[in-house]
């Protein structure tokens, strides 16, 4: 297994190629960072605007490595018991009820109270053993025999406390559970953290990670992505729609269209059997790429020049 993995991560070119096979087009910078992350065993902090494929990167890496993807979605108020582990209280209670007779017998043997307590102490570890532990994503990722890809999504949404708590895991890949002790990882998981930059992450967290910034792709890369993800779109239409999207991204609107939306749009246009963009077609399908009424209005005002310029680039 390890050898196979090592082979897959043997060079930057290889990673880029394998990613492409898995349907994820990335530039050399991304591939280099993944390469480093694997070989240095460091987590990667991925930042960038919404919808540039930050989460997708982790998913693809999991597919390509052949290990499970374990995902932890962060939100305000996320805490240890939801991220790391929890005791199965129900099971513990049930078992104490079921074993009541047994326990009584154990205690009955002793005459004095202190002796019974001593006796009980000998058994108390049973109820705080791995059998009663409910692993949550972080612990699960550490326990995977063959390694895993751990995706900590939107870490900027979590609280400062949670961020601090992540530090131990990210630097040593181990967690301490007071009742059991320290649990170390079997195989180091490959960790991706994503952030939309809604708040500045702490220095300490950044220090422990490699940092990757993914901007919106340039026209060539985006065309490549469309070609791979939506096969069947004609070359001409590809050029036109990518050019159109790139123009829209430069406009002052509330939410610029992401790659996901470009792909959706390409699919829609494919369904409509369109060969080329024209203002009417764009107007009818604008809601696929723009999600705010205001944005749609702004773009609609300039729909003619935008479409014309897009059509011109494809030489049609």
């Amino acid at each position, binding site marked *: 297994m390890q050898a196979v993995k090592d082979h897959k991560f043997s060079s*930057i070119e290889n990673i880029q190629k394998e990613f492409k096979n898995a349907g994820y087009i990335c530039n*050399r*910078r991304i591939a*280099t*960072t993944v*390469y*480093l992350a694997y*070989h*240095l065993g*460091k987590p*990667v*902090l991925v*930042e960038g605007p919404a919808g540039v494929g930050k989460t997708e990167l982790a998913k693809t890496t999991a597919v390509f490595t052949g290990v499970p993807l374990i995902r932890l979605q962060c939100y305000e108020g996320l805490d240890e018991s939801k991220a790391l582990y929890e005791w199965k209280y129900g099971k513990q209670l049930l078992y104490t009820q079921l074993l009541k007779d047994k326990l009584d017998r154990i205690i009955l043997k002793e005459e004095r109270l202190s002796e019974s307590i001593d006796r009980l102490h000998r058994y108390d570890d049973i109820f705080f053993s791995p059998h009663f532990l409910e692993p949550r994503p972080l612990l699960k990722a550490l326990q995977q025999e063959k390694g895993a890809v751990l995706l900590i999504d939107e870490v900027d949404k979590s609280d400062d406390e949670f961020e601090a708590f992540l530090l131990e895991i990210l630097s040593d890949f181990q967690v301490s559970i007071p009742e059991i002790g320290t649990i170390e990882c079997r195989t180091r998981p490959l960790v991706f953290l994503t952030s939309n*930059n809604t708040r*500045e992450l702490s*220095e300490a967290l*950044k*220090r*422990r*990670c*490699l*940092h*990757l*910034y993914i901007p919106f792709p340039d026209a060539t890369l985006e065309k490549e992505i469309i070609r791979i993800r939506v096969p069947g779109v004609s070359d001409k239409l590809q050029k036109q729609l990518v050019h159109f999207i790139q123009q829209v991204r430069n406009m002052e609107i509330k939410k610029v269209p992401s790659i996901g939306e470009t792909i959706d749009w390409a699919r829609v246009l494919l369904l409509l059997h369109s060969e080329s963009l024209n203002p009417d077609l764009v107007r009818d399908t604008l809601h696929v790429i723009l999600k705010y009424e205001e944005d749609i209005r702004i773009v609609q005002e300039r729909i003619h020049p935008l479409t014309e310029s897009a059509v011109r680039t494809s030489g049609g």
Partner: protein
Amino acid sequence: MDHTLREFIRALRNAGIRVSVSESIDAINAVKLIGYAGKEDLKNSLSASLAKTIREKEEFDACFDRFFSFDSFSDPDMTATCDRTYDSRSRLSSMLLSGDRAGLISSMIQSARQMNIAGIQFQTQKSMYVMRVLNAMGMDGVDRDIRLLLEEGTPAAQWEAAELAEARKYLIENVRDFVEKYYELFSLSATDQVIENYLRNSRLTNMEERYLHRMQQIIQRMVKRLNDLHSRKKKASRRGVLDFKKTLRKNIAYQGMLFETMWKTKKIERPDIIAICDISRSVSRIVRFLLLFLYGMNEEIARIRTFVFCSSMTEVTHLFEEYPVDQALARIQNGAGLDIMMGRTDYGRSFLDFRDKGMGSVTKKTTVLILGDARNNFYDPRTEILKTISERCKRLIWLNPESRSFWGTGDSEMPRYAPFCSLVRECNTINHLEAVVASLLRIH
């Protein structure tokens, strides 16, 4: 540790990128893995391990390009005369004459390292470093060679001497460029610190325009620190200890059985602020920084209303709702499009306007912050309005950019206004501003 990398990291630190020790170790490991061969890969991997924000990435790119572009000697116009040997000449002369650029570069870099060129800090040190590097490369040998050749006097020797002299000039030029580049990379930090200290304590009114951007950065840092400090306090105040008296009282209904627990809580004070700012020329710059501070703290401040005045007063709160802080400030600064007269400052008239427009929102929870020099151009000061404000609000703070000793001189009405204020402060440096804002946020 790799010498090149170490120097690069120093250069990064000078450019304002914070690089910790653990990050440098990552960088070393990354370079071990990637090697120096591919420049693009090297850049990507160093960027991943060293630059951790978007701003830092930009700085990093610039710094990387500058740093790794060095190792080039500009194309010499001397032609390498190949078959001749220069065994009798010094090593440097022979390298110069045979046009051995690689040799010259490595010799230059080596000498520069010996001379600890990364220690260069000031403009004035440049020529000294040029001299040192040249000497370490063996410049005296070249000079001696030229002298000997001239003494020899044969035409061939004359010609060679001329050529060598030409090459010598070329060498000096290149070393000078080299030192210049190093200066750009390494000199910033010492001066950076000095400038920051200087900026924090210098009077905002006579700040030079070119430092304004820098100031903004400093303020942003301070704002972040204050925010961190107070968000922690806020959290601490949420936690409480058991309030035993309250618990007992509450549980009388259950015959004294302690069912419900009551906790002590601290009240979090999120101040409600009304800022009244004089935007006449003499004060406008400080207004800018004060508002930058206040609006940066909007998480900790419940509500801010901002009024500006000169000859008359108007409210500008809506500007901050519509535009980003920078733009709103720019709009206020030039006073264009505001419903305001930009003549001579008239505090009395402005207070009158405030009574009509803003007095209604002054409550017992409000902190009123007035920023102005109280120079009233001998108009009626209307202290009675200030008195009303001070009676209605929780705190009235007057910030005056003038030094205390000038208060009351000429047309300054400060002594008449001061008795109605709960706090009067001189405020003309960033440090003063920080102190004021911090005191606004204190939990009581």
